[in-house]
């Protein structure tokens, strides 16, 4: 099988509109989470990471386009445009497009939303993005809860491996909406302060919004400086509960085993884990159990939710991009919000951004429906 790489990338987020700016903010310990009092989203004030509307409008205007676009569409178009441009690729029939999202334009269902309700259909979003850039192939929309963004990387890799495409662009995005905030609030899953993944004092998640884009490619020439090779990937179900994580971390455990197996990598060769770490009591405990079963308890690990909140279907792709820059810079980023270990098994939480030689990293994510995904990435030797 061909080697497959994740190359050019972009993040549109509360911490900036391009990957280097965003990663610099992460390295500096800046969080995009703030207290938001907006009765249109929630009766009570809440903590979330949101993109400033004026900045987004300004960035979108620079695309010089006509027509009206939703907030999420603007975020995704701004993000993907930069990656397509950086890649220099012509969008021919060998180039695929994957859109990954949990809820897409779900705000179109709101009574006062100016867009037609049919905008909430995810295939509409796919077609819009495809036509905007002139992709020759059908948009593939992937909606698999909170693993959507990282699963899309695995899906792209498989399509390239089997010869369907030579290159695949992925754009992933989700919004902070009344729909999402009220839903997680009904689960009593929202923290009323900035979230604290793996910490003894954690008490829930913050929602965040982001659009993230990457190019996945088999072409080794013309890679971005921070490009990584995909060594192995897997996605396994817990077969346990639709909203509660498995008590044994079964699906996550199996996902990592299968990804390691494909990669031909031993657990002790993993230099860094970019974990899911939502900061709910059950999720973080589940991950600690799975990583201990895997013999990964001593590998430096962080959750980036303290910087961006939980950006739902986009989180896995966002965190993969930050991980790529982490490898390139040989720098481990602090797991923001963490004070004292609050899971029953040992984990090596990164408690201060520091330099370290890095070669291989593991990205994991888990979501409702019992889904889990693990991908192993390696720095490209030049």
């Amino acid at each position: 099988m061909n080697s497959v790489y994740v190359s050019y990338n972009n993040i549109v987020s509360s911490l900036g509109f391009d990957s280097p700016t965003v990663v610099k903010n992460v390295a500096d310990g800046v969080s995009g989470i703030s207290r938001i009092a907006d009765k249109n989203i929630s009766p009570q004030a809440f903590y979330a990471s949101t993109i400033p509307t004026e900045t987004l409008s300004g960035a979108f205007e620079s695309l010089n386009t006509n027509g009206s676009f939703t907030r999420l569409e603007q975020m995704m178009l701004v993000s993907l445009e930069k990656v397509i441009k950086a890649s220099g690729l012509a969008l021919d029939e060998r180039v695929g497009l994957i859109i990954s999202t949990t809820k897409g334009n779900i705000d179109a269902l709101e009574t006062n939303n100016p867009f037609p309700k049919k905008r909430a259909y995810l295939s509409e979003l796919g077609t819009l993005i495809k036509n905007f850039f002139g992709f020759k192939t059908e948009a593939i929309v992937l909606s698999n809860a909170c693993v959507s963004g990282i699963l899309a990387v695995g899906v792209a890799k498989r399509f390239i491996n089997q010869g369907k495409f030579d290159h695949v662009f992925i754009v992933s995005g989700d919004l902070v909406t009344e729909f999402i905030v009220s839903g997680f609030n009904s689960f009593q899953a929202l923290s009323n302060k900035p979230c604290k993944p793996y910490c003894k004092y954690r008490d829930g998640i913050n929602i965040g919004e982001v659009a993230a884009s990457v190019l996945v490619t088999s072409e080794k020439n013309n890679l971005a400086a921070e490009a990584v090779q995909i060594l192995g990937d897997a996605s396994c179900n817990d077969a346990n509960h639709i909203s509660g994580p498995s008590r044994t971390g079964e699906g996550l455990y199996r996902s990592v085993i299968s990804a390691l197996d494909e990669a031909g990598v031993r657990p002790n060769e993993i230099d860094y884990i970019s974990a899911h770490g939502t900061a709910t009591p059950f999720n973080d405990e589940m991950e600690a159990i799975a990583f201990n079963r895997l013999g990964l308890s001593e590998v430096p690990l962080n959750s980036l939710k303290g910087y961006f909140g939980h950006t739902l279907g986009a989180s896995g792709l966002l965190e993969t991009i930050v991980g790529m820059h982490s490898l390139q810079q040989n720098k481990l980023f602090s797991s923001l919000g963490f004070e004292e270990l609050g899971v029953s098994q040992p984990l090596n939480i990164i408690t201060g951004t520091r330099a370290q030689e890095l070669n291989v990293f593991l990205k994991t994510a888990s979501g409702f429906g019992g889904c889990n995904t693990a991908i192993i990435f390696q720095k490209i030797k030049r």
Partner: protein
Amino acid sequence: MLKTNKFIQSYSHIRNNTVSKNGTLLFENASEAFPDFIKAAYNALDTGYPKFFKMDNLSKLAFLAADVLLKEIPSATNKEQNIAIVLSNRASSLDTDRKHQASIANKEDYFPSPAVFVYTLPNICIGEISIKHRLFSENSFFIFDRFSAEHLADYTNGLFLNNKAEKVIGGWVDFDTDTYEAFLYLVSDKGSIPHNKKEINRLYRL
């Protein structure tokens, strides 16, 4: 593009108030709306899984269409099998999304429910199937504006080529305001129908 030599071992349809397997009618109830129809089908097919009644419409549809295929495999109930699930539809979870949105539309009458919210993701139905049949396997949910045999066939082949599954359940499960349709098929080493785009399209239209 790389191909695999697999077969469609069995397939099921739920549509127009009928449930069928391999083209043979298993249940029909022409007079009922979907909630009553699917409940009657659950009873008639001797499903015996009370969690079914907590599911939303999309999950009930997908669960029953998959159960028809999986309960014929004796070992699926007692020995673990690596059967991946690759589903697709047009309306995602919009039927339940609208219910959740309705529960928060009025600030004076605000009643979001976790039991509804959890079903506002299309892949929850894959979780329901996985729990019942103990499938710790690959799963993914794709959205298209119409049935895409090509995408399903390609992705399924990719799972086999990457050694990620021994068998795959693929298909289409769509539930929208006034319409529903399920077509699922089991791909394995056994059977007489070749697994390819043409045959998937033929069976879908049966």
